[in-house]
């Protein structure tokens, strides 16, 4: 049926794109000056050591062969082994994925709970003091450096007030500060977007018509206006959620939250290229999947959108 065909088409496109970016990264990595084997071996290493490492990593094979081998491995989800720990990268990443997902879900939920009501409030009380204040809050939230906010929170809540842990994970308490930090930034977008969307919907003819039917004001607002206005908000939130799966590397580093983001950053410093490549691959995949799911949700939520064209009847 149409749904299946659409899904397959999208999945195919998804793989193309993901492989596209991994290919690009692969080639940039291998074509930039600098010898990874030498870098890994360190300054003290002898030529032999460098050669050993080179052989171990397969860096002595020609470029196209390495590429082919790399891509084939990717298909089997074999991302190689971490240069630091020797364990398969895929294991390391999968171990951290749940943490990142947890942080993403909790931040997103918080951001939506803060952002949508504020956006509605601002739109309904358009041109009032409240609208103005909400806009200001949104602009401020958008301007604060997340890592700085996180640090300030740590100083305040952890050190001065001894209320919350400063970092790491394990208890729900550990989740609070990182989530709030991310949520403040995210909600600034959600507030603006919700407000704009509602204002746009309020201008549409069917809203005036709904009022002309004498429907109670609440019904018009919640049933007619919101139902339409929140559709684009959903799409944006989906995109943001997908982005959050990248682990918000900066926030994770600030709070020492053991997720993918922090893993990528640590791997970069350790020059653990397989780990970096592998994590990026998994992340690109996850991001694309979330986008796909968001698109599908969009089809469900907005009856005007069809997967392939629509039909009109008389």
């Amino acid at each position, binding site marked *: 049926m149409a749904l299946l065909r659409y899904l397959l088409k999208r999945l195919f*496109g998804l793989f*193309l*794109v*993901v492989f*596209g*970016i991994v290919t*690009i*990264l692969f080639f*940039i*990595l291998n074509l*930039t000056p*600098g010898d990874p084997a030498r870098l890994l071996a360190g300054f003290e290493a002898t030529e032999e050591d460098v050669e050993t490492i080179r052989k171990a990593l397969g860096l002595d094979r020609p470029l196209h062969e390495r590429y082919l081998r790399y891509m084939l491995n990717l298909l089997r989800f074999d991302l190689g082994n971490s240069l630091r720990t020797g364990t398969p990268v895929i294991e390391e990443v999968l171990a951290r994925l749940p943490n990142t997902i947890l942080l993403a879900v909790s931040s997103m939920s918080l951001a939506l709970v803060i952002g949508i009501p504020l956006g509605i409030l601002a739109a309904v009380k*358009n*041109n009032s003091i409240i*609208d*103005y204040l909400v*806009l*200001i809050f949104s*602009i*401020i939230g*958008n*301007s*604060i*450096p*997340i*890592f*700085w906010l996180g*640090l*300030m929170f*740590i*100083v305040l809540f952890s*050190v001065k007030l001894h209320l919350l842990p400063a970092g790491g994970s394990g208890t729900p308490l550990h989740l609070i500060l990182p989530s709030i930090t991310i949520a403040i930034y995210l909600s600034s977008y959600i507030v603006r977007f919700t407000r*704009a969307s509602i*204002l*746009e919907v309020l*201008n549409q003819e069917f809203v005036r018509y709904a009022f002309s039917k004498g429907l109670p004001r609440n019904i018009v607002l919640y049933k007619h206006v919101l139902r339409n206005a929140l559709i684009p908000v959903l799409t944006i939130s989906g995109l943001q959620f*997908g*982005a959050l799966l*990248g682990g918000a*590397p*900066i926030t994770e*580093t600030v709070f020492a939250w053991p997720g993918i983001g922090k893993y*990528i*950053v640590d*791997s*970069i*410093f350790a020059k653990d290229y397989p780990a*970096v490549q592998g994590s*990026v691959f998994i*992340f*690109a995949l996850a*991001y*694309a999947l979330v986008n796909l799911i968001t698109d599908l949700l969009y089809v469900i939520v907005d009856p005007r959108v069809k997967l392939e064209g629509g039909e009109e009847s008389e």
Partner: protein
Amino acid sequence: MNETLRLLLKHKGGLIGLCIVLGSVITALLSNFITPYNPYDADLNRALQSPSIKYPLGTDEQGRDILSRIIYGSRFSLFIAFTSVAIGALIGIPIGLISGYYGGWMDYIVQRITDILLALPGIVLALALVAILGPGLMNLIIAIGIGFIPTYIRLTRGVTLQVKSMEYIVAAKMLGLSNFRIIFRHILPNILPPLTVQLTLHIGSAILGAAGLGFLGLGVQPPHPEWGAMIGTGRSYIFRAPHLVLFPGLALFLVVLGFNLLGSALQEILDPRLRRG
């Protein structure tokens, strides 16, 4: 244009934003002359001093005057931001124009490339690129700049498609006006309003992005006084000497706020539906 400027000056938030932006640009340009001390001058004997009359914002872990470093740091943040956004726009806009205007297989390929660039959200892409290219100023600019390209491609392409089908363009083509002329005189002016908004907002993003990477240690390297890097190194001393982290952060916040206020005001002015009052 003049109308926009006039409305902007009347807009409270926009006015504040404009002042901040101009203020920071001037500070950056004149930083060589207005820093009270040399931002790189280190002396461990006066390290980690709290703010005082002599050193209004205190000194950092190497004894350098923080105020001077913040003033001088504006050069980095602004330079990185302007350049990376410029790269994104200068590459993205022509591609978007051509792609939208001529369509066909060229458009298809451009769309696919855009998809690939969008496969990773901004910061992860920047991280990945920095991981490969190594830390440093130019690499940072490239990494961030590349992340902006898809936005400009899409924006330009969208407007181009919209304008292309309008009657006066069809008429112009029938009159035999060269494509080049059509693009320049008719399509480009339509791009300017959303473009200016986007540019302004992106600069704020770029400042934060660069600072974030600097914080992680992957951006501008010490001893350069880039605000993010300052926070990164200052982090170790946060309990004893929080001012190392506090002031660069405030600087970041203020400057980005300025650009965001400006961008937000422009957005309101140029899109009447969002107008207030």
